[in-house]
């Protein structure tokens, strides 16, 4: 099958990542430095997530890979094919059937279980980076739990816009200690981070950081008493399945700019349609593998 070591990485690299993962789990929300390796896909394209997944995989796993909530986006396809090749694991598009899910920018709508692991691809792990470019400084801030700069910045947003103007990668505080960047998930997904039955692992390859949220961990989105956090989304149902509780993609359907909204989580939407739910625009038979690609 493969001339590669199981899951591609050599054993020494896996040990290094595994040790980092254990410390990450022991210090929720703290970014553990690790010696990220060059992978066959570019930095910025999920190498951190891929290394964490590779270090965690066992042959019995069923792997799901999503990007923007969808299994069929090109990068998800590419990463799934990579692991199918180098680890020979079963793959699935169904959240409920997966034991390990690697994701970019979304948390699945289907609630996760204790027997599942969610691995996030992270571009910029440092939540303070947009306030302070120097790692030497941000490390000190985390060491001393000095997050005043962040609170000031958020309050400036309120002064200027009337609300905190952060719609994704919305920072959270973990167990009342570390401020953490949950990766560029929409803030709509933030409530799923805390008290989750699954283990959540975060890998940033280029920036060389790993962090973790153990199951059932306290995670609070940063806010102020008079400006509490609101997980928001367009106030529309999914045009395909009618769901009102899922995060939606906006799709432009004609040159006049007509738009419709569909579930970002393609598996969730499909499951609902399989169960008979229909939105206003659902085609009668849309899961057609021979559907034409738009030119």
């Amino acid at each position, binding site marked *: 099958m493969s001339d590669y070591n199981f*899951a591609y990485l050599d054993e020494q690299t896996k040990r290094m990542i595994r040790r980092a993962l254990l410390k990450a789990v022991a210090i929720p929300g703290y970014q553990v430095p690790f010696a990220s390796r060059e992978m066959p896909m570019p930095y910025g394209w999920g190498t951190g997530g891929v290394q964490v997944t590779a270090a965690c995989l066992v042959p019995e796993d069923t792997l799901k890979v999503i990007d923007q909530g969808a299994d069929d986006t090109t990068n998800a396809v590419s990463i799934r094919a990579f692991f199918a090749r180098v680890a020979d694991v079963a793959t699935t598009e169904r959240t409920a059937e997966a034991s390990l899910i690697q994701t970019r920018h979304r948390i699945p709508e289907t609630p996760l279980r204790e027997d599942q692991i969610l691995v996030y691809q992270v571009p910029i792990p440092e939540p303070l980076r947009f306030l302070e470019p120097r790692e030497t400084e941000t490390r000190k801030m985390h060491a001393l739990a000095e997050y005043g700069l962040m609170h000031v910045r958020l309050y400036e947003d309120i002064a200027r816009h009337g609300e905190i103007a952060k719609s994704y990668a919305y920072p959270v505080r973990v167990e009342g200690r570390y401020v953490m960047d949950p990766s560029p998930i929409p803030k709509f997904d933030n409530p799923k981070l805390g008290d989750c039955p699954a283990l959540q692992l975060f890998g940033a390859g280029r920036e060389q950081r790993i962090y973790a949220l153990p199951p059932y961990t306290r995670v609070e989105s940063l806010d102020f008493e008079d400006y509490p956090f609101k997980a928001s989304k367009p106030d529309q149902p999914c045009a395909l399945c009618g769901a009102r509780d899922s995060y939606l993609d906006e799709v432009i359907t004609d040159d006049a700019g007509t738009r419709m909204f569909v579930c970002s989580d393609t598996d969730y939407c499909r499951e609902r349609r399989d169960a008979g739910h229909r939105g206003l625009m659902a085609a009668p038979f849309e899961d057609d593998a021979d559907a034409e690609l738009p030119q």
Partner: protein
Amino acid sequence: MDATALSGGFAQPAIDAAHVFRDVLQAMARPGRIARITGVSPPPGLSLAAAAVLLTLADETTPVHLAGACDSAPIRNYLRFHTGAPITGRADAAFALGNWEALAPLSDYPLGTDAYPDRSATLIVELPALTAMGARLTGPGIRTHAQLSLPEIDPFIANARHFPRGLDFIFTSGTAIAALPRTTRVEAG
């Protein structure tokens, strides 16, 4: 070096280590849960679970401290052959192995720094038994509460006060394994 040092490792290193790591990861992520590990034949004085943990996590870059009766020639040889881990004193250890009394005092081991709390030792504590009874555990990884037969209470409370610095623990007994990260709140059961 006697023959038992050369045998007794993983039959399929990549696959076996992957399985053991998943168990250790879940143990650390869900304090109090006990899992079972098989697949190695360690020398006398070393439990199967502890041997599997060391083979999975230790290598030339991780100094290991052997405490008390674990500092024996068969165990040293086994470790050296299968992991290449340098054997060191307590202050430099990435991992320390021994029974609870031999490992004490906990203050001997690196706790990490405020800037790098991850640079702390992980203690592999060999216990005579490991059951879901005794000390009461709450905190990250535990939905409501759990119980685990910890050898003592106070040292873990003291360890938690160092947060974010602190030691992390893996408990082993025969083929059983459980773990306690530094975030777990421990009280009498």
